[in-house]
């Protein structure tokens, strides 16, 4: 088997900002003393005069970004998901969300795969927090390719965008032919026995689960749902009608994330079983990221189990 290229989506974020910096000079990038980790440091190195470090003050940074955006300019702010979505939640809600300003939030180190830093830095709640803000776009790219496209799409978006990136290098799933559009899920594999809707690094696991299920004679439909908000209702409803059972897979709490967003659509349209795979209602802890993904049940084999549960629940 050929070596699979792995890249952290945060790296794609930083590199794409550098590319955009060469193409346009109408935006500012800000960080809160984590530029090396979030990868905005790459932009800082290339365009130091367009980069502002706010120091360790995420709430101030988000409101400053709102002020910049209120003057009609583009601005990207970056920190860890825990601090961008968590600590600065109310600034995102009131300074950015309420006036519907064009602030791009690049949140890195999301999810349990932060690894060794442990629970204080493992944000499994950011999708839930961000998607409750009216008018907020929430994007969770699956790999390097999608992350690059998502960053570019965010620059064309009207209103605030929350983008979620990971620390852990993850396999590149999509090639250059991949098309990304905000608000559109993408069917990656056809199947009619069950649908697996995955986001972020769980997309790769879902593709592996497809093969495992296939070997057992189960044809799963695989959907990549990079945009959590606005959620692609059409692709969910179609999947519910055609497959009759849904599994959601995300590296985020089972409360409030992709699983909840899909359930909200399903409950009101085509009520079929929805089985959620994610981080259960618990905090993470320190350890190597890949071992934590095993321990917290965020693997293809876990998706397979959930798929069988969902199928068993079909009427």
């Amino acid at each position, binding site marked *: 088997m050929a070596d699979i290229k792995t890249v952290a989506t945060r790296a794609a974020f930083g590199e794409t900002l550098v590319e955009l910096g060469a193409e346009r000079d109408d935006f*500012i990038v800000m960080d809160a003393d984590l530029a090396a980790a979030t990868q905005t440091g790459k932009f800082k190195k290339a365009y130091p005069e*367009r980069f*502002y470090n*706010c*120091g360790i*003050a995420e*709430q*101030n940074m*988000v*409101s*400053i*970004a*709102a*002020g*910049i*955006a*209120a*003057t*009609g*300019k583009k*601005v990207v702010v970056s920190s860890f998901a825990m601090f961008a979505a968590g600590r600065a939640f*109310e*600034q995102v809600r*009131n*300074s950015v969300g*309420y*006036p*519907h300003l064009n602030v791009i939030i690049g949140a890195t180190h999301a999810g349990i795969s932060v690894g060794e830093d442990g629970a204080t830095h493992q944000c499994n709640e950011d999708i839930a927090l961000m998607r409750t803000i009216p008018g907020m776009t929430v994007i969770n790219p699956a790999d390097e390719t999608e992350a690059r496209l998502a960053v570019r799409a965010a620059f064309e978006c009207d209103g605030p965008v929350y983008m979620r990136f990971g620390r852990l290098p993850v396999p590149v799933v999509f090639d250059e032919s991949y098309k990304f559009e905000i608000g559109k899920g993408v069917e990656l594999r056809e199947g009619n026995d069950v649908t697996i809707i995955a986001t972020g690094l769980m997309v790769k696991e879902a593709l592996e689960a497809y093969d495992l299920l296939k070997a057992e004679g189960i044809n799963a439909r695989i959907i990549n749902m990079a945009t959590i908000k606005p959620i692609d209702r059409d692709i969910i409803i179609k999947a519910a009608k055609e497959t009759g059972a849904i599994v959601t897979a995300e590296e985020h709490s089972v409360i409030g994330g992709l699983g909840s967003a899909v359930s909200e659509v399903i409950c009101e349209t085509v009520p079929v079983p929805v089985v959620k795979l994610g981080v259960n209602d618990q905090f993470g802890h320190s350890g190597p990221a890949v071992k934590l993904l095993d321990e917290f049940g965020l693997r293809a084999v876990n998706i397979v189990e959930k798929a069988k549960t969902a199928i068993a629940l079909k009427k």
Partner: protein
Amino acid sequence: MEATFKTQLAKIACKVRIGIIEGVHAAKAGHPGGSLSIAEILTYLYFKEMNIDPNAPKDPKRDRFVLSKGHAAPALYATLAERGYFSPDELLTLRQIGSRLQGHPDMKNIPGVDMSTGSLGQGISTAVGMALSSKHFGDNYNVYTILGDGELEEGQVWEAAMFAAHKNLSNLTAFVDLNNLQIDGTIDEVNSAKPVDKKFEAFGWHVIIIDGHDFDAIEAALAEAKTVDKPVAIVANTTKGKGVSFMENSVSWHGTAPNDEQYEVAMSELKAALAAFN
């Protein structure tokens, strides 16, 4: 300042106070005390200091104002109406369903409102962002904001103060409405941020202390602000509830609307004050 112009400003501030009382009375809710305390500052900013045009409220090169103490919205609305951004009649729709005049300023719908505010501590950071944008993109406008003294208890204010001085945002001027009262009591009782001047100085700002009801002092402070290469804090000693006798220096008028009887008394006082200029 020329005497006739000063009288003109004083009359406008009086009309702003009338607008505040009319709006809050009609709404049966709102914050009269901390609105009345900033009438002179807002009047000077909108009628003398700022480069603005009510007919071009979105001009990208205009000066910006952020009401960081967003609950003083009735004062901002009355000033904008008096300046011609919208009809003073609209002040009577304050806080009503369907009104543009939300309980706290809404930049999306109210002409002349440069930033949505209301959650304390965030406004000054947004003003810092505007000042940074002005300098970064070479637009060269000035940014003004008004903070409450109670608002200084929010940690974000000091994050913003630290950043503004570090980035040398000399185009930013922040007034502190030092009226000594907040909703739960005097600021000395609740959690005093005093000495306010020393704190801003320690954070690297140029500080000027004035009587916030004295137009000459406001003018002199803003002139001085243009001569220094730092962000400027103008600590304005004010009287909460200024201009309405029974509201002055009273905690209970922080967030309470006058009833009909109180409204009549307040209006007669303000109208008498206005008539005295003629």
